[in-house]
């Protein structure tokens, strides 16, 4: 019972954060709302019993990735965005598609979901997840790691400055 109440509370916080994310005009406030969304999602995972996923959600998304978001906003010194009244496309296509998607999701959950999960019924401790990752899902796991490696190499290539030594050698120093 307590689990269910907490689940609903965090769900409400999560949705409120997501709506606030869109409504805020300043990028840093949007980023902070996104942190609220991530943190309350972690709380939802924890309430469902997936402790490991909850902890990883906080460490990776709320703790590391969002710090980088906030950093970029701080470094670029992004200002307040102007509020426009939206394009006509958003009104004529966006709203109907949103409604359609909502109806589809409700229909799928109520009619075609065969399993229902009660709060706290999942069993997601680190050992189980580790075994799944290194037995059943070994190939996707390793492929993902190679993908991340490629991303790291790309970042190093893009951020590296190979001509730095030449520039320093060519520019005469002022105090010389």
């Amino acid at each position, binding site marked *: 019972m307590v689990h269910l109440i907490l689940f609903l509370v965090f769900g409400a916080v999560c949705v409120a954060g997501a709506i606030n994310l869109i409504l805020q005009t300043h990028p840093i406030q949007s980023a902070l709302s996104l942190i609220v969304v991530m943190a309350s999602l972690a709380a939802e995972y924890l309430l469902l019993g997936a402790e490991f996923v909850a902890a990883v959600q*906080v460490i990776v998304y709320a703790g590391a990735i969002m710090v980088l978001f906030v950093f970029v906003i701080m470094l670029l010194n992004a200002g307040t965005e102007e509020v426009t009244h939206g394009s006509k496309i958003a009104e004529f296509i966006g709203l109907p598609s949103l409604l359609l998607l909502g109806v589809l999701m409700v229909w799928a959950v109520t009619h075609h979901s065969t399993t229902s999960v009660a709060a706290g019924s999942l069993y997601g401790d680190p050992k189980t997840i580790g075994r799944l990752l290194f037995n059943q899902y070994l190939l996707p796991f390793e492929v993902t790691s190679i993908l991340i490696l490629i991303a790291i190499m790309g970042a190093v290539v893009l951020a590296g400055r190979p001509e730095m030594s030449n520039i320093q050698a060519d520019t005469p120093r002022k105090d010389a």
Partner: protein
Amino acid sequence: MNFLPYILIALIKIAVMIGVLLTAVAYIVWLERKVVGRIQNRWGPTRVGPFGLLQPAADGIKFIIKEDLTPPHVYKPLFIAAPLIAVVFALSSIALIPFGNNFTLFGYDIPMQITGAGGGDINTGLLIILGLTSMGVYGIALAGWSSNNKYSMLGSLRAGAQMISYEIALGLSLIGVLILAGTFSLRGIVESQGGHFPGYIPHWNIFRGQIVAFFIYLTAAYAETNRIPFDLPEAETELVAGYHTEYSAMKFAMFFMAEYANMVTVACLATLLFLGGWNGPLFGPPLVQALLPLLWFFLKVFAFIFLYIWVRGTMPRFRYDQLMAFGWKFLLPLAIANLIITAFFVAYRA
């Protein structure tokens, strides 16, 4: 399930813990001023009370009655929220630290830890502590940004980059211990370190091949808590006071409390993970036997705190590029090598 006594015990524990932690923080500041004073051949605080022992109280009163200035050019909501974020995450991470085995009082089996109902420990305690400490970065990052001051901004950028970089080495240095213990539960990790090797060497992780990991952890922990030699976010010779330049009175005190509470948490974690937690020789009547583990635990934590102060009194500050190069090019590969060797060792033994 009887809910009321559980909540009551939890509330009492939280109150006691916050009281003890804040007093400890105040007296660590006193100890630091005393010890650094002796290292630099001066006396440190002597005027308020015997040995300056009432100095923390005087400081606290000063912080509270000082005028709470808010500069006109700051972004107010985040300027106020930033010190709160820093102190809340610093104080809440201590909730997961177990200080000893269960303590039986009036028929209730009370775990010496705020979290964990009925003696059970959270299965992912260590991960949750890491998550809480990584959320603490926001306090510092937002303080620098909302102050609208270039020194604050530079300080918070340095702090953020430094904390993210060293978090990786810190996390990797812990995995060796986790492989040896086979659990994320802090209680389980301490229990796996009970007993002796033949002879008198205790079965602590630091003596079980994790000594390199211990030094990686120690170095990274200094960087995580922004202490000398890695205190670049508040390097006063370059950045005035770094991210808390614009803060005064109680808001400044909150950053101060957060830093020292983080020091305590880091010292507790080092004790639990590498120095056997509350394990130690037990002797004497039952009451002494019940209290000795607590004593061992606090002695070990105190040793770490003292080491922090000692290092502060003796080491110069790193340059920023040296700090980054040291973290990424030395500590990180060393931590990975340690992890691989530990994994091979455990696989060979199994």
